[in-house]
C-alpha cells in the first residue's frame, strides 16, 4: 500500500515503514537505545529527504522510548532521580547542539561532520563495549563461582556535591551525570539521534550504574532530549512529517514492547555483545561510505536562501 507523505513529498510503501519501525523498535526495547542511529540512515536509503528523516526520527523515538520506559517502570528499573539529573543536562546540551549545528551548516560541511561524528563515536563505543562484554562472558564461563568485581573508586567518586541515587545504589557527585547528559544532548542534536548508544555505556562505565537500571533510566533521558529536538525542528524548519512518524511509531511501539520482553531472557553481557556488534556494523558501513569512491560524485541540495 503506497502512501504519499505530506511533508517529505514522496510516496512510499506503508508496510515498509511499519516494518522498519517494528525492527528498530525491537532493538530499542532490548537495548534501551532509541534506534535513531539505525533508523535515520535507513530513512535516507528509502528516499526520505535527510532533513525530514532527522526531524521525524526524533519524533518517532519519543514514542518508542515512552512505550519502553512504561514497561521498565512496572519492573521498577528506572532511577528517577538520576533520570532527572541526566534530563536537565540533556536539554541544556540539546539547545547548545542546535546552535552548533546551525553554525556548522553555515560553514557548509555539516554532512561530513555528522558522518565523522557517527564513525568516531560508534567505533569507540562499539569496540570498548565489545571487548569488555566478551571478557565478562569469558570470565563468567571459566570461573562461574568468582564473585563479580566491585567497581573501583575513580575520579568520579572524588567530586563534590554528592547525591544519593537509591535505585542505582550510588552515592556520587551530581556533576558527572549532568555532564554525561549534556554531552549526549549535544551529540543527539547534531547527529539527529536519541543518543542511547553513547548514554548506555557512559552510564555503565563512567557512572558505574547497574546494567539493570541503565536501560530504563536512559530511556527517560532520551524522551526528554528527542521531544525537545522534535519541537525545535517543527518550529524552525517545518521538517517533522506527522504521517511518516505515525507509521514508524506504530511499528516502533509494538516492536519496543516485544523487545523489552526479549531483553528479560537475555543476560546483561549477551545484550551488550549484541549491541556492540550492531554499533560496529553501522560504524563500518559509514566509514566505508567515506573511504570508497562514490559512484555519483555530485549531489543535489536545495539552493537559494544562503
Amino acid at each position, binding site marked *: *500500500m*503506497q*502512501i*504519499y507523505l*505530506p*511533508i517529505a*513529498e*514522496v*510516496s512510499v510503501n506503508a508496510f515498509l515503514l511499519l516494518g522498519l519501525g517494528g525492527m528498530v523498535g525491537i532493538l530499542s526495547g532490548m537495548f534501551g537505545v532509541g534506534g535513531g542511529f539505525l533508523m535515520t540512515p535507513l530513512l535516507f536509503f528509502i*528516499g526520505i529527504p535527510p532533513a525530514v528523516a532527522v526531524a521525524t526520527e526524533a*519524533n*518517532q523515538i*519519543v*514514542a*518508542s*522510548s*515512552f*512505550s*519502553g520506559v*512504561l*514497561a521498565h517502570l*512496572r519492573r521498577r528499573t528506572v532511577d528517577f532521580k538520576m533520570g532527572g539529573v541526566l534530563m536537565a543536562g540533556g536539554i541544556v546540551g540539546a539547545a547548545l547542539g542546535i546552535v552548533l549545528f546551525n553554525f556548522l551548516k553555515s560553514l*557548509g*560541511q555539516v*554532512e*561530513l561532520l555528522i558522518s565523522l561524528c557517527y564513525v568516531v563515536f560508534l567505533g569507540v563505543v562499539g569496540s570498548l563495549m565489545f571487548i569488555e562484554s566478551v571478557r565478562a562472558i569469558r570470565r563468567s564461563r571459566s570461573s562461574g563461582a568468582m564473585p563479580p568485581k566491585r567497581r573501583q573508586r575513580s575520579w568520579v567518586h572524588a567530586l563534590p556535591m554528592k547525591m544519593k541515587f537509591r535505585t542505582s545504589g550510588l552515592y556520587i557527585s551530581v556533576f558527572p551525570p549532568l555532564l554525561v547528559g549534556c554531552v549526549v544532548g549535544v551529540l543527539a542534536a547534531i547527529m539527529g539521534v536519541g543518543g542511547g548508544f553513547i548514554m548506555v555505556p557512559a552510564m555503565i562505565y563512567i557512572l558505574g550504574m547497574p546494567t539493570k537500571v541503565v536501560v530504563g533510566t536512559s530511556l527517560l533521558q532520551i524522551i526528554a532530549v528527542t*521531544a525537545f529536538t*522534535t*519541537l525545535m*525542528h*517543527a*518550529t524552525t524548519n*517545518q521538517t*517533522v512529517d*506527522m*504521517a511518516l*512518524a*505515525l507509521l514508524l*511509531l*506504530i511499528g516502533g*511501539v*509494538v516492536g*519496543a*514492547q516485544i523487545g523489552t520482553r526479549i531483553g528479560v531472557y537475555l543476560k546483561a553481557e549477551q545484550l551488550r555483545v549484541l549491541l556492540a556488534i550492531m554499533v560496529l556494523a553501522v560504524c563500518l558501513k559509514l566509514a566505508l*561510505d*567515506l*573511504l*570508497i*569512491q*562514490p559512484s*555519483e*560524485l*555530485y*549531489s*543535489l*541540495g*536545495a*539552493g*537559494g536562501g*544562503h
Partner: protein
Amino acid sequence: MIRRLISLLILCLLAALPARGEEVVAGLSQTDVAITTTFKGSEILIFGAVKRDKPAPEDKLDVIITVSSHLTPVLVRKKERKLGIWVNAESAEIDFAPTFYAIRSTAPLNEILSPAADLQHSISVPRAIRAHDAQPSGGTRDPFVEAVIRIRTDQGAYQVQEESIELTEDTLFRANVELPSNLTEGDYRTRIFLLRNNQVIDAYETTLDVRKVGLERWIYNLAHEHSLIYGLLSLIIAIAAGWGASAFFRLLKN
C-alpha cells in the same frame, strides 16, 4: 469511448478558433492533479489536432510536447578525495531547474528542432535548466548542469521520450505523460509545439494544476502556519501511541 469523446472535444476546439495558417489545438485528459494520501502518481493524456485553412505543405510535420514543474534553484556539490576520505568540495548553484520535466516528440529532437529554435523556446532539457553564467552554445557544457540532468533522469524526474507521440494523418496527435509518485505541488506548464523544417510554426500552452488535498493539505498547512501546535500535536501523538501500545500489551499478557 474516451477516444470518441476526445475527438468530439477536438472538433469543438477546432470550431472555436479563428483561421491562421497551421495552428495547434489541444487539451489534457485532466487539468488538475489532486495529491491525496494514496497518491501513486498519475498519467496525463495530452491530445490535440492541427487546424489548417489550406492544404498541408509537403514537408514533414512534427510535434513536441513538454511538461515542466516550476523552476527552483538547486545547489550542486561535488565530492573530492581529501586526506583519504570523500568530502564535498566544489559547489555550484543552478539558478533555475525544474524538479520535473518531460519531453515527448514525434522524432529525435536533434532531427526536428534547430538549436536556434531550442534556445528561443527552451525545449530540450539542458535549455530548460538555466545556470547563472550563460551556457556556452555547443562545445563543453557545465559539469554541474550535466550532474543535475543525470541525477534527475536517473530518478525519473526528467523524462525524454522521443518518437512517443502518435501523429495520425498529420492532424491528430496524442501522448501520455506519467507523473511520478514523488510529485511536488505547483502549476505544471504544458507546452505543445508544431514544427516544420526544424522551425516552430505554432505553440500552445496550458497549465496542469497539481495540488495536495484533504488530509495532506491539512497537515501541510498546519506544519507551516502553526508550527508550534503541529510540533506539540506530533509529540502528543507519539506519547499516546507509546502509552497505547504499552497498555495494549499489558492487557494481552493478563
